[in-house]
Every structure is written in structure tokens, then in C-alpha cells.
């Protein structure tokens, strides 16, 4: 395509066509959000256990966790999705449980491995004096972890967890390959139905951009609340408040 044709194509963009398929895109946004949030939440739970297992001194806990994390992080999500949807679930349940179960499971198992590394790094970044102080007071390991280490480590995990959420949101588009009707799938359907390429895929891109932008705003808000200081901020008093006193 010469650049003249390119400009002509660009001039001819007709997003009005997309409007006819808005329900498809709305459903796609909804599915992308559900898959991402479900995968992230379950992945968070999985990741905490895997991350703690990765820190364990017991070999029979450490090695399975490490091998799992290395396997997931060393293989493409696309391959994982296909394995889970076409092989793992059918061989366990005898049939497919639908794209939603496969997609959510794949995103959970995948983000769990990445979150495990975030959890491990967050815990390891704490001064070891914190553990020693807790243990010297007679706290067993688990108690020290729960009341002393995790509350501090979670704060340090917030920024990298935010990155992971955004990465997962974008990577969730891979579930399209198992015909999950997410945002990208909507774009593919519209492309097939209208023979237009630019409009549907640009729409998908813009929708992802919108979602990642919203997610980054949410993360920035949470990060602000969990700032480096542990001292709770005093509520700002207004002039009216001062008059009342």
C-alpha cells in the first residue's frame, strides 16, 4: 500500500459501523474485565502461597513451587491457554467446561506465578531484624509472618502488583484463541462481518487503552494511600471546620 492509499484508507475510516456492533464490544469489555479481575484475585491467593513456598527451607515445599513458577514464567501464556483448554480440562472432566473456565484458570495459574515472585521479593526486601524481633518475642514463624512481615511486605508489593494487573489485562486478549468473546474477539467478529480492518481493531485497541488507563488511575490511588509513611494522615480541616471549634 503506498502512502497515498494509506491516507485514503485513513480518510475513509467509518466508525459509525462499529456503533452497530456496540453490544458485542460491551460484552467483550465485560468479559475481559471479569476474566482479568477473577484471574488476578485468584492469582493473588495462589501467588501468596507459592511465594511463601518459594521462601520455605523445606525442600519438598520449595522445589515444587520453584519448578511451577519457572515453568509458567518460561512458557508463553498462549501455549498455556491452549494446553488448559484443549488438554488439561477435557482430560480431567471428560469435556470442555467452556472458554470462561479455561480462560479464568489459565490467567489464574499464569498470574499466580508472577505474583509469587512479587510476594517473594516483597518479603525478602524487608529487614531481617523485623523477623528476628518478632521471633525473639516468642512468636512462631507463621504468627510473625501474619502480624509483622506480611503487613509490611504487602505495601511494597503494591506497585509491582499494579504492573502485573495491567500486564494481565492486556494478556487476557490471548483467550480469543479459545473463542472467548472478549474485546479482541468482538473486533475479529466485526472484521469478518464488515470486511473492515482498521475500525474494529482500532476500537479494540482504544478499549484496552481505556481499561489500562482506568487501572493505572486506580493503582495510583492505592499507592498514594499506602505511601511510604505508616503514619495515618490527619484529615484535612477546612476553614468551616475551624470556625465550628
Amino acid at each position, binding site marked *: 500500500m503506498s502512502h497515498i492509499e494509506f491516507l485514503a484508507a485513513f480518510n475513509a475510516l467509518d466508525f459509525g459501523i462499529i456503533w452497530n456492533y456496540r453490544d458485542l464490544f460491551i460484552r467483550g469489555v465485560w468479559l475481559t474485565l471479569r476474566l482479568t479481575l477473577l484471574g488476578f484475585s485468584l492469582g493473588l491467593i495462589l501467588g501468596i502461597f507459592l511465594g511463601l513456598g518459594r521462601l520455605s527451607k523445606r525442600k519438598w515445599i520449595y522445589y515444587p513451587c520453584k519448578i511451577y513458577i519457572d515453568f509458567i514464567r518460561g512458557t508463553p501464556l498462549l501455549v498455556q491457554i491452549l494446553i488448559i483448554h484443549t488438554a488439561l480440562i477435557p482430560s480431567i472432566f471428560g469435556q470442555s467446561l467452556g472458554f470462561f473456565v479455561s480462560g479464568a484458570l489459565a490467567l489464574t495459574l499464569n498470574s499466580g506465578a508472577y505474583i509469587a515472585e512479587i510476594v517473594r521479593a516483597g518479603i525478602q526486601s524487608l529487614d531481617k531484624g523485623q523477623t*528476628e524481633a518478632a521471633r525473639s518475642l516468642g512468636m512462631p514463624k507463621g504468627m510473625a509472618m501474619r502480624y509483622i512481615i506480611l503487613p509490611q511486605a504487602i505495601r511494597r508489593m503494591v506497585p509491582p502488583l499494579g504492573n502485573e494487573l495491567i500486564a494481565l489485562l492486556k494478556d487476557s486478549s490471548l483467550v480469543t484463541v479459545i473463542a472467548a468473546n472478549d474485546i479482541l474477539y468482538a473486533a475479529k467478529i466485526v472484521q469478518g462481518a464488515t470486511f473492515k480492518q482498521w475500525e474494529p481493531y482500532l476500537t479494540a485497541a482504544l478499549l484496552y487503552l481505556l481499561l489500562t488507563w482506568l487501572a493505572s488511575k486506580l493503582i495510583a490511588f492505592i499507592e498514594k494511600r499506602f505511601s511510604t509513611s*505508616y503514619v495515618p494522615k490527619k484529615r484535612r480541616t477546612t476553614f468551616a471546620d475551624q470556625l465550628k471549634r
Partner: protein
Amino acid sequence: MIKIKGLKKSFGDLEVLKGIDLEIKEREVVCIIGASGSGKSTLLRCINLLEEPTDGEVYIEDVKVNDPKTDINKIRTDVGMVFQQFNLFPHMTVLDNITIAPRKVKKVDEKEAEALAYELLAKVGLTDKAHNYPEQLSGGQMQRVAIARALAMKPKVMLFDEPTSALDPEMVKEVLDVMKQLAQEGMTMVVVTHEMGFAREVADRVIFIDGGYLVEEGTPEEIFNNPKNERTKAFLGKVL
């Protein structure tokens, strides 16, 4: 109260403690002095098993500490420890720092734990800081809170690991004063310190450690005024 026999500790190929024998009686205040890297902190940390001895035996009230069958958490509730870097829990208020262990480990109810915490805060002179966070305190105040936190478990012995080494000079005294008071009340104390003035004034016994061996021990007068060992003389010559 504390009995240490043939204690050895290695970190990899580096042998830090090469066979220490030591006995500490109830209500005794023992100061451990020695150069950096001599193993005095390691010795202290072996008592509550923050370091696992490589060889030898540590007994607290006739219970062998470094025995896999011993419930170390139970022993640690009787052994308070104060660290050089304070190690206060930064995500908790001063009050919570002091009450968390009694409440969670000993299952003391909240009101009782707080009453005790206020009592201890009064003792270290920080009642007004109960609802502050550690980062709002000075170094000296943090270390006094750390002492109160350890005392909240009602320990039978207190270990101090260079408690004033991370403090600005003007804050050293407030911490030492609290420790002096504690000693006068009859607390059994083992103090690793560089504060020779404190050792001279408060200690019942001073122990000099060098190169992983217990080189010399005696009353403060014996050690500071009339050291017998050449290495003790050389060390004291540098620090006094």
C-alpha cells in the same frame, strides 16, 4: 540461670566462636566487651537461638535451648532481646508494638495488655507517645520503646545487643538510664556493649571476648583497673 558449655559457632568456614563456657546467675548483670568481629553479638544471639550453635550446649534454667525437642518459642517468651537497630514494627503504634506479643503469644486480653504497656511506657518515660508511630520518635525514644516491648513479655532475662551503638551521642544516656534502673530492680541482664562507663558502673561481672574465646572475666574493678591478659590490656588501652 544461663549455662553455656563449649559453645562453638561457624558461619561457613569462618569459626566465630571457638568454645565458650559461661554461667550467668539470676539477678546478675553481665557486660560482654570486645572488638568488632570478636563474636560477642554471636554469643548473645546463640542464647535465644537467633543463631543455631554449631557445637556445644546452651541451657536456660536447666532446659537445653539448642535441642530440637525444646519448644524454642516458649523459651523466647522468657528471654527479652533489645537490638542495636531497635527493630520496632513500623506499621504499628508504640502501644501496639508493646501489646502485640503479649496478646498474640500469651493470649493476654487487650485491656490487660494495654494496662501493662502503659505501666512500662511510664517506666521508660514515654507515656505521651503511646499512639505515635516509630518513625515519629527519636532513636533514643525508639530504643526505650523496644525495651518496653521486650519487658511486656515479663522475661526472666534480658539480652541487649549493643543497644546504644546506633544512637546519637546525646541519646545514649536516656537509654542507659533505663537499663540502669532495670538492673537495680534485679533483672538478669546480659549486655553486649561498647559503653565502658556503663559496664564499670552497672555490671556485676565483665567478660572480655577476643577471637572467639572468652579471654578474661571478672568484676569491673578487676577488668578495668587490673587486667591480667595482654589482649585485654591492649583492647582497653584502645577504648579507654
